[in-house]
């Protein structure tokens, strides 16, 4: 009580905005400075955590969690309170959202580090050098077909002359601001409560991809905020009886922008809008004009049909493989044909037991709350169509959890959380603190805040293992932990000395670097339907390996001798289709990697200690 009074005296310079209604509105900043201070302190601890992690220091994880708690705790406490104004809640949500974005930036503040970032860098580079779209990206063939992110970045680059990395960071920061704003305003508009909107935003931040995946320079990271913006704009357009040109124009433009930016987000947006339109026509008779929702849905269907039919057809195949793979494996697990995937198990550092407990508790809390939030959404009133759509989405949450017990469906489950948590956030927050009474909700702030913190922390744990959240020394097959100066320098050397677009074989990390920084063409089963990984695992070069090299027109083989030091942290050395992917118990033999030495027709043209490059262009010619 004394502490609260002290903070109030220290920070309050004026009364709240309704004290003198005849004067021009003034804004109280009472708690916001406290939030800024605690968030800043949290960022300092996270910077120290990153510093410790780079040397595998034992204090890195405790510092990480202390920093996160300092950032999220006070913000959540304040948002749960009924006292703050709408503007204050919005400010807190923005500060928290941006601060969590900086958490990701601080892991690698001077260069790209996440594998997908290099993938999109390649597409961006191709657009900048050619001036046109739909080039061939060997790292992710689908990327050039949805070029919204790269086109926007290219436009900013040619207009500003700034470097790609700083531009990417600014763009993703702007996207984060749009995410938080649109989510908050969407929830506030649907529920009529800024308090609900603030807590809905915190619950959304608990989705598995929020901290890292949706903050990286990747097409989905830009598509999601634009899709949220589209939904908010449609809602406002409808609420203005279709008379708001701004909201209508923004909605249609945002739908188009989403379509050309990311396939999955676009399909989710179409599904949402169509379901909303249908339910609105059926349920919302006599309410506000529904034609804006119908127009938006029809526009979304039309734009997506045109785009997918003309250039985006590859996406259907791409998504079909992913979704069917997960679904088929789930069926196999349920019928006992396949063992379920073990959670929190990888070749990297073990997830600490307390984190596992928090992760399970988080899921349990959401599952327990789900029926209550759904009942609350429909009880005692005729819920608007948009609430019903959110309810349908929320019901998919348990299904998405089941996919986590499959190898092929884990990524689908993670991606699904980016959308399902909108529904969980809005409905959950409305149940927790909404104005309509509910008998079964926790009432005390001392209970609600810890629940929200557990849900947030659990999502963070489930989304990224410790080696994914923090930087650190090199690990084999460990995504960003495998990106290091020697690989980067080798890729730069390749572009300088070999020229671009040479077809080569490399492990997953060096393939990303060579394919982006090096502008080379790594050949894989994903882009050429050739099992080039088998060439690397073979003890000797035989007929089948020669056949792959010939059919792939492989010119170079890039060998990273460090692969023989350990099993990959994330399932595979080269690609998911390699022998024993996900089941490596011993490292790839060094002899397999060194088999190119002394082979007739093979020359060794580059050696940096760990990375060797062989020219195999004459191997096929000289081998009988």
């Amino acid at each position, binding site marked *: 009580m004394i502490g609260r009074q002290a903070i109030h005296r*220290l*920070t*309050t*310079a004026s009364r709240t905005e309704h004290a003198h209604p005849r004067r*021009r*509105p*003034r*804004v109280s*900043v009472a708690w*916001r*400075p406290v939030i800024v201070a*605690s*968030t800043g*302190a949290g960022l*300092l601890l996270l*910077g*120290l955590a*990153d*510093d410790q992690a*780079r040397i595998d220091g034992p204090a890195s994880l405790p510092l990480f969690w202390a*920093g996160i708690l300092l950032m999220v705790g006070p913000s959540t406490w304040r948002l749960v309170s009924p006292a703050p104004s709408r*503007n204050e809640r919005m400010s807190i949500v923005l500060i928290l959202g941006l601060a969590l974005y*900086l958490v990701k930036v*601080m892991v690698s*503040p*001077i260069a790209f580090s996440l594998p997908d970032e290099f993938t999109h860098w390649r597409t961006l580079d191709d657009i900048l050098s050619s*001036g046109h*779209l739909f080039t061939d990206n060997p790292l992710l063939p689908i990327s050039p077909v949805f*070029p919204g992110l790269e*086109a*926007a*970045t290219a*436009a900013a*680059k040619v*207009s*500003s*002359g*700034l470097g790609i990395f700083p531009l990417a960071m600014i*763009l993703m920061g702007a996207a984060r601001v749009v995410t938080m704003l649109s989510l908050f*305003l969407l929830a506030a508009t649907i529920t009529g409560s800024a308090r609900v909107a603030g807590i809905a935003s915190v619950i959304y931040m608990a989705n598995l991809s929020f901290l890292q995946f949706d903050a990286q320079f990747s097409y989905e990271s*830009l598509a999601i905020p634009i899709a949220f*913006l589209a939904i908010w704009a449609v809602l406002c357009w409808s609420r*203005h009886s279709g008379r*708001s*040109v*701004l909201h209508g124009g*923004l909605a249609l*433009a945002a739908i188009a922008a989403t379509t*050309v930016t990311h396939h999955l987000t676009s399909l989710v947006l179409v599904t949402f809008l169509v379901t909303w339109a249908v339910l609105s026509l059926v349920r919302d008779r006599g309410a506000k004009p529904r034609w804006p929702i119908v127009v938006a849905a029809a526009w979304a269907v039309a734009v997506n049909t045109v785009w997918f039919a003309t250039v985006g057809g590859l996406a259907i195949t791409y998504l079909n493989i992913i979704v069917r793979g997960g679904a088929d494996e789930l069926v196999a697990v349920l019928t006992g044909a396949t063992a379920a995937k073990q959670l929190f198990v990888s070749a990297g550092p073990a997830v600490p037991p307390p984190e596992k407990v928090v992760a399970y508790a988080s899921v349990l809390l959401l599952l327990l709350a789900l029926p209550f939030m759904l009942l609350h959404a429909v009880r005692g009133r005729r819920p608007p169509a948009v609430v019903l759509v959110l309810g349908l989405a929320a019901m998919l949450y348990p299904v998405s959890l089941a996919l986590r017990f499959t190898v092929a469906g884990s990524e689908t489950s993670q991606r699904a959380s980016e959308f399902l948590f909108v529904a969980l956030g809005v409905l959950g927050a409305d149940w927790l603190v909404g104005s309509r009474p509910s008998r079964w909700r926790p009432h005390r702030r001392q209970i609600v805040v810890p629940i929200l913190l557990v849900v947030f922390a659990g999502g963070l744990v489930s989304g990224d293992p410790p080696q994914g959240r923090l*930087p650190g020394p090199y690990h084999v097959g460990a995504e960003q932990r495998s990106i290091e100066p020697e690989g980067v*320098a080798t890729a730069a*050397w390749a572009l300088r*000395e070999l020229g671009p677009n040479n077809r080569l074989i490399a492990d997953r990390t060096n393939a990303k670097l060579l394919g982006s920084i090096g502008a080379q063409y790594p050949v894989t089963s994903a882009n050429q339907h050739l099992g080039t990984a088998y060439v690397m695992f073979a003890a000797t070069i035989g007929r089948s390996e020669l056949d792959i090299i010939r059919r792939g027109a492989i010119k170079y083989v890039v060998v990273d001798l460090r692969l023989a030091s350990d099993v990959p942290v994330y399932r595979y050395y080269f690609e998911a289709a390699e022998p024993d992917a996900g089941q490596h118990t011993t490292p790839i033999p060094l002899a397999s990697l060194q088999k190119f030495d002394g082979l007739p027709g093979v*020359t*060794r043209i580059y*050696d*940096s*200690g*760990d990375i060797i490059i062989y*020219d195999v262009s004459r191997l096929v010619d000289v081998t009988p």
Partner: protein
Amino acid sequence: MSLPDPRSRVAATLLILVTLGLLAVQLVTNQPALGGVGLVLLLVPGFVVSQALGPRPLGWPEGLLTTLGGSLVLAVLAGVIAALLPHGLDASSVAAVELVALSAASTIWLVRLMGHDVTWGRLRISVGPGSLLLVVVGLALGSAGFIVAVRGAQDQTHTSFVQLWSVPPTSGADELLGVRNLTGLAIDCEAVIIRPGQPEYDWHIGAFANGQSWLGQLPRRDRSSPGLWQISVHCAAPDGSTFDRRLSIDPPA
């Protein structure tokens, strides 16, 4: 309906005119006229559109969302449209697309402004000294954390390796041997070239500093002595660390 705030109106008009002017320069010169200011493309287009088409004064969250979100949407669509044009995406095509959109929106906005149809809410923020101190402390702490992270990342990018290479030359050219020092130290290197049917070739490459590269012309192959050459390079640093690299090449005769 309240009267427009003159200072805000003048500031916004100036910003828009400057942006239009710079875009026009960019269109003509095909150079990034905006420079670092080019980041205004992340704000100005959306701002103008929201002011031009908005139904009423927007609250700051709605205004910020339509400004920033609208600008992002326009950036995506402008980039895609520019790249789909026969001319292709470059500074002038992006400027052309942005100019069309911004000019149209600016015209509508100016018309509304003339008719006093646009209103500006003026936000007054009262900040006590304690609040200001807390904000400054928070920003300072956050910045310190960021600086710690940046310095840690820079330290981790310190290298400790040597690159050795020899790439088949274009026709008629001599093959070169390349060494690049990325050890963080000065190194002294020597090479030994074992050539089938020819005497061993010892080559003192010499000393060079961190970050420097060395390129040497390899001796020509004796036509009567085919076979691969084995090149071994040994580099030593003052602290006692050594780096050994080897190649196996087929140089031209």
